[in-house]
C-alpha cells in the first residue's frame, strides 16, 4: 500500500476528511473568518505536489488547505492555524487563508486574487539568479485570477525572463458566482498562455494520475531551463465558494454531472477494479485520515492562544528568527 497510486488516493482522502471536518468546525464557530473548501478539487494538489521536490516552492491561494497538507505541513499545525492558536503553522495570525511554512517552502495562503502570481515569479527569479538549478516554484490560482492585471504582468515577466514557474490554473469554472464564460472574452485559457509565448495545456483536474502526469511533463520542461509552463486543470468545487456563499448560481444538474466525477470515488473504483487496492485497503485510508484529522482537532483544541501582549510582534525585525528561503 505504498505505491504512487495509493499515495495519490490517500492524499486526496486526507484532504477530503480534513476539510469535511473543517466545515463542521466552522458550524461550531471553532474556525472563523472565511473558509474556502477544496472538496472536489483534491486531485490537483495531490497530483501536482506529488511531483515536486522539497527544494521547490509552493505559492497558493486562500483555498489552500489541501496543498498545505500534501506538502507535509502537519495536520495538527494546519488545524491549530485554522483555530488561530499560537501553535498554528502561521503562529495563529493567518487563519485558514494564510497558511505558511518556511521549512517546507510553502508561501501561503494568499487572499488577493492574482496578487501572489508576481510573488511566485519573484521566487523563481531568485532561484534563477542564485543558480539553484532545477528548482521550481509552483503557483496555484483559480481561473478567476486570469482577468486580473497582475496575472498578465506576472505571466509576461516569467516568460520574458524564462523563469522556472509552473503556473497551475485551477479552473473550477466559477469565481464566486461568476462563471468563466461571463468573465473571460476568450475562455480557452491556453490562448492566454500563448499570448505570452508560454507552453500550456489543459488537464483533467478530476484525475489525480492525469494531474501528476501533466505536472511531471511540465516540470521536465521547467527544470530543464525551458521557462515557465501554464497548466489548466479542469475541475469543479463541490461546495460553495466559502461558508458565506448560498451557492445559488450553479444549476443542480451541472453540479450533479461533476460530482459523478468525484476524483476520490472514481479513482477508488479504478484501483479496486484493477485489483491494485481492495475496498478494505481503501476503508483503512479513510480511517487513517479520520484519525489524522481527529488528532489535529485534539491538538488545536489543546493548543494555547497567543498572549495578547504579543499583539505587535512580527511587524518588523525584532529578532533574527524570520527567514528568507535558501
Amino acid at each position, binding site marked *: 500500500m505504498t505505491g504512487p497510486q495509493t499515495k495519490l488516493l490517500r492524499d486526496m482522502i486526507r484532504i477530503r476528511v480534513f476539510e469535511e471536518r473543517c466545515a463542521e468546525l466552522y458550524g461550531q464557530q471553532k474556525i472563523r473568518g*472565511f473558509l474556502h473548501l477544496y472538496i472536489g478539487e483534491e486531485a490537483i494538489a495531490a497530483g501536482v505536489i506529488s511531483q515536486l521536490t522539497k527544494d521547490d516552492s509552493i505559492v497558493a491561494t486562500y483555498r489552500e488547505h489541501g496543498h498545505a497538507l500534501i506538502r507535509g505541513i502537519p495536520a495538527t499545525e494546519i488545524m491549530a492555524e485554522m483555530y488561530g492558536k499560537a501553535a498554528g503553522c502561521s503562529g495563529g495570525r493567518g487563519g485558514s487563508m494564510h497558511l505558511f511554512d518556511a521549512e517546507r517552502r510553502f508561501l501561503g495562503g494568499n487572499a488577493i486574487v492574482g496578487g501572489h502570481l508576481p510573488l511566485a515569479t519573484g521566487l523563481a527569479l531568485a532561484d534563477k539568479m542564485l543558480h539553484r538549478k532545477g528548482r521550481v516554484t509552483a503557483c496555484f490560482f483559480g481561473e478567476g485570477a486570469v482577468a486580473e492585471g497582475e496575472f498578465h504582468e506576472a505571466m509576461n515577466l516569467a516568460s520574458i525572463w524564462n523563469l522556472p514557474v509552473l503556473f497551475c490554473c485551477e479552473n473550477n469554472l466559477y469565481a464566486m458566482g*461568476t462563471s468563466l464564460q461571463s468573465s473571460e472574452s476568450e475562455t480557452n485559457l491556453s490562448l492566454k498562455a500563448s499570448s505570452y509565448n508560454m507552453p500550456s495545456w489543459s488537464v483533467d483536474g478530476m484525475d489525480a494520475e492525469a494531474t501528476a502526469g501533466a505536472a511531471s511533463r511540465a516540470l521536465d520542461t521547467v527544470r530543464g531551463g525551458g521557462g515557465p509552463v501554464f497548466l489548466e486543470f479542469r475541475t469543479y468545487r463541490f461546495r460553495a465558494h466559502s461558508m458565506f456563499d448560498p451557492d445559488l448560481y450553479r444549476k443542480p444538474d451541472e453540479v450533479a454531472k461533476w460530482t459523478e466525477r468525484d476524483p476520490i470515488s472514481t479513482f477508488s473504483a479504478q484501483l479496486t477494479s484493477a485489483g491494485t487496492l481492495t475496498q478494505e485497503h481503501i476503508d483503512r485510508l479513510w480511517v487513517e485520515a479520520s484519525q489524522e484529522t481527529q488528532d489535529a482537532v485534539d491538538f488545536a483544541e489543546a493548543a494555547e*492562544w*497567543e498572549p*495578547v501582549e504579543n499583539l505587535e510582534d512580527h511587524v518588523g525585525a525584532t529578532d533574527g528568527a524570520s527567514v528568507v528561503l535558501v
Partner: protein
Amino acid sequence: MTAPELAAETTYRDALREAIREAMIEDERVFIMGEDVAEYGGTYAVTKGLYKEFGRDRVRNTPLSEAGFVGAGIGAALGGMLPIVEIMTVNFSLLALDQIVNTAATLRHMSGGQFHIPVVIRMTTGAGRQLAAQHSHSLECWFAHVPGLRVVAPATVTDARWMLKAAMADPDPVIVFEHNGLYNSSGPVLPGPVDLTTAEIRRPGTDLTIVASAGMVSKSLEAAEQLGDRNVSAEVIDLRSLRPLDRATLAKSVEHTSRAVVVDEGWRSVGLSAEIAAGITEDCFYRLDAPVCRVASREVPIPYPRHLEDAAIPQVHDIVAGAMTVMTGSLADV
C-alpha cells in the same frame, strides 16, 4: 422642513439597496457594476435581487479586474451614464487606486473644468470579522487625503439611505465607505434628504467631545453611556463626511467641552485621527484643557484570532480609557 416621520425599521443593507433602486427607477442612466453584483447579489448582499428588476445590463457583473471596471465606471460617467461601482472591499481597491487618484480625482482639474465625473464608488471597509491581514483594512484616510474626491461614511440606516442618494446626485466622484459591521444594523429611516458634508451630533454632552465615524460611532455611543456612569457627559459626533471634514461642527462642540477624543478604526499613525486631532487643535487651541486623545488601531496588520483582532482595533473600553485620560489629564494640569 417637515417634521421627521418614523419609518418602518430597516437594515443598513436594505437602505443602501433602496437608495440604489430608487436611483435606477428615477434615471435610466444609473447602473451598478462590480464583481458578482447580479445573481449573487454582491458579497454583502446589497444588490440582492436588483438584477431581476433591472436586468443584467444595468446590474452588471464584472470580471475580477478592479482597475479595469473602476476605470470603466469613470469612463462611463464621462460618457453620460451615472455609474455606481461596487468594489467588494477596500482591500481590493488598492488595485484601482491609479484609476481613482490619477483619473477620477484629477480629470476635472487637468481639463480646466471641462469635464466632471459623476461616479459613485462604493466599498466595504473595516475589520472585526476575523478576516486577517489582507481583508481587514480601514484605508479611508488615504482617500480622504485626495483633492477631487468626496468621501463619505454613513453610520446609520438613515444616512445609508440618503447619503447614497445624495452621492449619486453629486457631479463629482464620491467614495462611499460601508462598514462591514453595519450591514445588519437596523433602525428607522428618517426622511431625507441629507447632505454629504456635515457632521452630526449623535449624543449631546458637555464635558468631552468624542469624534467617530462609521463602525466606531456605536462603540463611541456605548462608551459615552459608560462615561455617564462616571459622571462624564460625553458628546458624540459622527463625522459622516471624511472629505471634506466638517471642522466647524467639531470646533463648536469642543469650544463647549474643551476636551476631545478621536476614535478611528484605521491605524493610528498618519491617519484620519491625526487630521481630526490636528484640526481641532488648530481651531480650539486656546480652549483645550488637554491634548486631543487618539484612540485608533494598533500598528499591526490585523491578525486572525478574535482576541488579537479585538486588541488591535478600538473597543469601547479603549474609548472610555482614552476619555478618562483626557478628563484626568486636564485635572492634573488644573
